[in-house]
């Protein structure tokens, strides 16, 4: 949609191929336990990258390093050309793994997604009509426009997850980071999810880093798959992984099984 392209507050869209995430030889440990060892990873604008690995492989730790909540013991991290703590936050869209939104007080889908505008326009500023337009557009792109006024806790798990994706979209991110967003989500939501990610990449030139075990819904759109287990074991196109005998699409259970075998 032209809205996002025309009304950006000053900063232009990243050029296609511009490096959005640059992780170089990063190591990290909790106490004496090494979690990440010489990990390097990049995500470029317009690129759709999946990060996979067995449980305890350091995926979540790597995301925390990327998002600036953990400082690496060694190596360098640049996000959108900046140190993770100094990057302009609105440029990163984040979809957490299990948002703890078993809300005490009812909150509508629109209220949740409006929060996504706070970082873009300044949290102290009142919302304008244009902000509501962005929210409407974000909700449309995940297929929830009809449910804008519905309390979030009346939605299915898949619909809730799409609301959180819309919240990330609402800040017009250049980089979208998703932590296990489609775990246990229904088929329709997986389809919608794929459609909205592809839309963000194609229309807005954003880069996407997806942490997930379930890649079957998006396998045909992925540019790269990165397999992590403390170190990077594989970084390449999905068909190269398929050539190694690991199927991402036809037999979706193959990937989890293979990841288990990596332990």
């Amino acid at each position, binding site marked *: 949609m032209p809205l996002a392209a025309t009304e950006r507050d000053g900063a232009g869209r990243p050029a296609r191929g511009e490096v959005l995430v640059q992780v170089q030889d990063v190591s990290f440990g909790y106490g004496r336990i090494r979690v990440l060892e010489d990990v390097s990873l990049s995500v470029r604008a317009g690129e759709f990258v999946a990060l996979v690995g067995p449980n305890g492989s350091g995926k979540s730790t790597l995301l925390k390093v990327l*998002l600036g909540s953990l400082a690496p013991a060694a190596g360098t991290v640049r996000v959108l050309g900046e140190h993770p703590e100094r990057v302009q*936050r609105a440029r990163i869209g984040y979809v*957490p793994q299990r948002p703890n939104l078993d809300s005490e*007080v009812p909150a509508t889908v629109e*209220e949740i997604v409006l*929060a996504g505008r*706070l*970082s873009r326009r300044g949290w102290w500023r009142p919302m304008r009509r244009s902000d509501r337009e962005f929210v409407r557009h974000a909700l449309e792109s995940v297929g929830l426009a009809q449910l804008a006024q519905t309390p979030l806790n009346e939605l299915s798990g898949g619909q809730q997850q799409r609301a959180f994706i819309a919240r990330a979209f609402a800040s017009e991110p250049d980089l979208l980071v998703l932590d296990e967003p489609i775990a246990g989500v229904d088929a329709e939501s997986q389809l919608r999810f794929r459609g909205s990610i592809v839309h963000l990449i194609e229309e807005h030139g954003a880069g996407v880093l997806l942490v997930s075990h379930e890649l079957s819904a998006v396998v045909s759109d992925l540019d790269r798959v990165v397999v992590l287990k403390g170190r990077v074991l594989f970084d390449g196109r999905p068909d190269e992984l398929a050539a190694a005998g690991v199927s991402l699409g036809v037999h979706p259970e193959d990937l989890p099984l293979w990841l288990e075998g990596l332990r």
Partner: protein
Amino acid sequence: MPWPLPYPFELAFMQRALVAGVVVGIFAPMIGTFVVQKRMSLIGDGIGHIAFAGVGAGVILAASPNDPGMLPVWGALVFAVVGSLGIEWLRARRAASGDLALALFFYSGIAGGVVLAKLGGGLNASLFVYLFGQPLTVDQGEIAVIVGLGATIVIAMLALRRALFAVVTDEEWSRVAGLPVGALNTVLAISIAVSVVAAMRVVGILLIAAMMVLPVATGQLLARSFRGTMWWSVAIGVGSVVLGLALSRIWGLVPSGTIVLIASACFALVAVAKRGVALRLRTGGAEA
């Protein structure tokens, strides 16, 4: 000269109680909506106990313990602000879980209050005013304090409502999104402390948390949005104060307790009515 209001609000002292009570009925549920969403419903109670230690400190500092003037209120304000920041500090650093952090301050506060007040020689009936509230004896100066503090809280909550909503709903996401999570939590903590002290004379330290939480408990049954919950809660808060004061005058009941009982009766009524509607819908559906 009292305003020309009908019975039971025709007398000046009832009208002062009404003004003070309505202000509390507005700001306490408003801040309570964020507190409940943050799952810290008992924080008002915890801060109330700490404020009691501040009352004790105020009595010590006063020249005459039996007529300490406004010193107990300022003492309560200082203790409540420091205490609420301490609870938030412990919670944010995960040094103690939210309710453990509360309990630590809760018990230290009430114990400190008793010890300090006894030291000051003021452990007498005048402390009951702070523990259980006494809206009928509120004077003009106290009304000015309550209205001033209340207006500050209402303005802060309305101005920051979207950012506060984001933080109390999803703190991890808010941090990644670059919201000043620490500062917003601090503003909320200070606002809770200020509202506890502002409401102290009306409902009392032991019942303050009730006015923050009970109207919200009812509001979230009636509303389908965060915004709707907040306005329903304020309406129920104000309604409970007006009805509670009226009934306490008519039947000679304790005003603060009556106000809170009305607020809990509202919850019971709405919960039962909602359950009845849900049951009727279900059986209606089964017949069809």
